Each structure stands twice: as C-alpha cells, then as structure tokens.
C-alpha cells in the first residue's frame, strides 16, 4: 500500500487528484440527487414537527461537515507544523471557505427550524453559541491567510489559530452532553441504534451526508489544486524578478567598467 506521505509531493498530488476529482464530483451529484428526491419528496411528516422535519436533511449534514472539516484542517495544520509539507497547509487553506459555508448553512437552517419549533430563530444555547464561535474562527482563519503575504508565515500562524479553534469544534460536537441545558436536541445519528431517527428519515439522511461529504472532497481537491498552482505562479514570478535583477546588476557592472 502506498504511503499517504506520497501525496505531500505536489506533482504526485496533482496527478492523483486529477484522476479522483471526476469520481468525487459524480458521486456527490448522485448522492445529493438521491438524498434530495428521497428526503424532500418521499419522506412523511413527523408526528410532532410536521413538515419541518425535512430541514433535517440539510441541517444535520451541514453541521456534521462544519465540525469534521475543522477537524480535517486541524490535522493538516499539525502535519504542516511538524513535517512542513506544503500540500497539507494548502489543503487546510482550501478547506476553510467550504467549512465556513457549511457552518453558515447549519446556522441559517437551524434558525429556520428554530423559529417554528422553539418560537425563536436564535437562543444562546451551548450548541448554537459554540457553532457561532466556530464560524467566527473560520472567518478569522480565512482573513489571516489573506492578511499575510509570505505563504510560509501565513501557514504557521493560521495553523496555530486553527489548533486554538479546535476547542470550539469539540465543544460544538459535545455541547449537548457537556451542558445538560438549552433547547437543542441530542445527536440525530449515533452508533447506538436507540438514539437514531426513524428509519423513514435515517436512510435518506445517510444519502445526504454522503453527498455533502463527497461534495466537500471534490471541492477540496479542486481548491487545493488551485492553491498549488497559485504557489507555482508565485515561485515563477519571484524567479523571473530575481533573474531581471541579476541582469540589471550585470548591465550596471558592465557600464561601470566601460
């Protein structure tokens, strides 16, 4: 079996990701189509929540991805800090806007579910609050990358910021267990079958989760490829600027001799 570290080579990553990208994108489209048709059109209303149960199929996968994308960024940040593999830092950078989008979707759909069920779109519940802080960490992480010109310094600082924010990713995941208060319910999916939603909702929900995960993977590959190319552009421009400086220096030297 090939080592995962082979992906740290940008040329090899570009080759492998070019092959994997169409499969991830196709799989995402298929899973999202199946999940949408099944979840939106073919599931019954819940006996207590009525048709708002259909929000489950976009709220749960986006919230799940929001936390897991942050976890992936944290792992990539550790790899960058320990082993200095550029692809890992660029993958974390590429993942951040997708994670921010997933967190925004989870917050927005949660508000639209909360209004009819709780009577309020927002409450300072532990899970909601930790999700809001997680969103702010995503935004801060993206802003920090944009603010620092040197890519290695940016990767160092954003990695540290990402690791600090990991606390809130963990709190977001376990807030309902840590603080037994607030309005938000517990997990909709669990390895313990007693906690799972009814089978009528369970399978379409799994299809949507698979669709969201593959969608993320496809976009992550696409965006990481873009970041690698951007880095190559920067290297080419710097090499060209150095060559021009050397040529001008040589011309000035020749003029002084003459």
């Amino acid at each position, binding site marked *: 079996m090939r080592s995962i570290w082979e992906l740290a080579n940008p040329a090899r990553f570009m080759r492998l990701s070019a092959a994997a990208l169409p499969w991830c994108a196709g799989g995402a489209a298929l899973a999202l189509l199946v999940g949408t048709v099944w979840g*939106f*059109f073919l599931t019954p*209303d819940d006996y207590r929540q*009525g*048709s*708002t149960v*259909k*929000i489950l199929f*976009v*709220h749960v996968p*986006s919230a799940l991805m929001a936390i897991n994308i942050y976890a992936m960024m944290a792992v990539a940040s550790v790899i960058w800090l320990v082993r200095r593999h550029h692809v890992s830092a660029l993958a974390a950078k590429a993942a951040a*806007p*997708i994670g921010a*989008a997933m967190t*925004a*979707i989870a917050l*927005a*759909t949660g508000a*639209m*579910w909360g*209004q*009819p069920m709780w009577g309020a779109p927002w409450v300072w519940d532990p899970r909601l609050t930790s999700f809001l802080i997680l969103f702010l960490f995503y935004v801060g992480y993206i802003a920090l990358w944009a603010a620092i010109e040197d890519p290695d310094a940016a990767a160092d600082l954003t990695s540290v910021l990402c690791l600090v924010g990991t606390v809130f990713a963990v709190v977001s995941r376990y807030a309902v267990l840590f603080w037994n208060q607030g309005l938000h319910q517990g997990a909709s999916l669990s390895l313990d079958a007693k906690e799972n939603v009814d089978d009528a909702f369970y399978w379409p929900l799994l299809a949507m989760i698979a669709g969201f995960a593959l*969608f993320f993977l496809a*976009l992550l590959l*696409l*965006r990481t*490829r*873009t970041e690698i*190319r*951007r880095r*190559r*552009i920067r290297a*080419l*421009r710097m*090499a*060209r600027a150095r060559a021009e400086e050397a040529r001008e220096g040589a011309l000035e030297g020749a003029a002084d001799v003459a």
Partner: protein
Amino acid sequence: MLPDLGKYTLYVLGSWGVTLAVLGLVALFSAIEARRVRRELEALEAEAPRRPR
C-alpha cells in the same frame, strides 16, 4: 411537484433554498477561480523557460 408543506412551507423551502444557493455559490466561485489560476499559470509557463527536472 412539491409536497404539501402546510404552514411550514416558508421555513422548509427557505432552508433548502439557502443550502442550495450557498453550496452552488461556493462550487461556482471555486470553479471560476480554478480556471483563472490554471490559465494564468499556463500563460506564465509558456513565457518562461522550463524548469530542469
């Protein structure tokens, strides 16, 4: 045809609409940026001499 969502139509359609719009925009911007950067690199590499391997 849309299922009957009763009095929650606005909330359910709003949630799905926001989700599709945000995911669509992220995918669209990522694809546009990917194409722009790829073309920029191709143009730069066409001008610059190839790096020795």
